[in-house]
């Protein structure tokens, strides 16, 4: 099971500290949500070796307009092990759900965001995963949290109906916001998700990263076909 963490150049938590915390909390790995507009250079391999966890180089696009988001998707796709595009707006959600080059539609219900059956079906067809973001459930209170829980319930029903892929995250911005996998499962089941759904959503990050690493590998020709060096096989 993987957790996604927000890294910033001048943020309150360094990638290394996220590594210690995520590993101690019981996750198998973490996805770095590096913002496309303000990228931080991270040595993912040395982090992975130091803390014995998987580290995925994710890039999150936070553009507010479709044209800008579209350009950024084209630019960042070749280097991203997981490409996330933040929704938080119905038009942008629809655009992202219809973009097969995107891996994850991040925070679709946040802000003014909303999702309907058309977007859910498009996401299922294009293999764009919806992010079930538990951030608001963990850190908001009162009416805001009620709204977030209601939104996540709607998202869950649409995902189940369309059979759309989804991922689950606690989305911490500092190491103090990290919660363990069993905590996220407990919170998820309390707001109406199945235990298996939350587990699958936390594990899906790893599956997406592995699929993309395979695609980025220069020896990969197409799914299931790869170039083999003759000298190695003899």
């Amino acid at each position, binding site marked *: 099971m993987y957790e996604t963490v927000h890294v910033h150049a001048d943020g309150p938590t360094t990638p290394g*500290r996220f590594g210690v*915390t995520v590993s101690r909390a019981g996750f198998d790995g973490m996805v770095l949500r590096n913002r496309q507009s303000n990228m931080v250079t991270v040595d993912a391999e040395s982090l992975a070796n130091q803390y014995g966890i998987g580290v995925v180089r994710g890039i999150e696009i936070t553009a507010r307009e479709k044209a800008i988001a579209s350009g950024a998707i084209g630019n960042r796709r070749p280097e991203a092990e997981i490409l996330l595009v933040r929704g938080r707006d119905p038009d942008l959600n629809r655009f992202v759900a219809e973009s097969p080059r995107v891996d994850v539609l991040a925070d679709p219900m946040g802000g003014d965001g909303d999702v309907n059956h058309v977007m859910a079906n498009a996401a299922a067809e294009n293999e764009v995963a919806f992010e079930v973001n538990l951030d608001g459930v*963990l850190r908001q209170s009162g009416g805001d*949290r009620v709204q977030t829980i209601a939104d996540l319930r709607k998202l869950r029903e649409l995902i189940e109906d369309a059979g759309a892929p989804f991922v689950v995250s606690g989305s911490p911005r500092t190491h103090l916001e990290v919660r363990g996998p069993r*905590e996220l499962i407990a919170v998820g089941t*309390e707001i109406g998700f199945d235990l298996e759904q939350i587990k699958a959503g936390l594990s899906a990050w790893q599956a997406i990263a592995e699929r993309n690493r395979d695609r980025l590998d220069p020896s990969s020709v197409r799914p299931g076909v790869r170039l083999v060096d003759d000298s190695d096989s003899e």
Partner: protein
Amino acid sequence: MRHLPKHLRPRYRYLAVEIETWPDADFGRQALQDAIWSEARTFLGDVSSAAVDLQVIEADCWTGGGSALVRVRRDATEQARAAIACVSSVDGQPVRIGVRGIGGTVKATETKYCDGPPDATGTESVSFRGATGRAVYRTDRVDIDMNGLFVGATPREL
């Protein structure tokens, strides 16, 4: 009042709770109890909070963290875990909080899951992100005080 007969006494489980904070945080058992109760009421609601019956038995706070022992009804450990996970600050101080393990008795839970404070704690002045700050070390982690704003890092990154 007379003790209840054994078969009528409630069955409990004890949660070993791990807490991480910034180095300047300090709070006691009552503050943690208030934070957990308030979160249980808002997240689980009155009916479920009564059913879970979260009681902080003891709490220990040290530089940069702490630990606590929380008693809950035996059949409500997962609800308790969810309520505890939703606590994001105690007494206005941000915390990372999670359940390390669950035991059937106070003694077993303490022996198995409560490690006590980390060994090495020291402070020194360091240069970080082009400025100087006071670093507070704890074994594999370090918090740097940059003019009142803390940054969490690891000793390898300094």
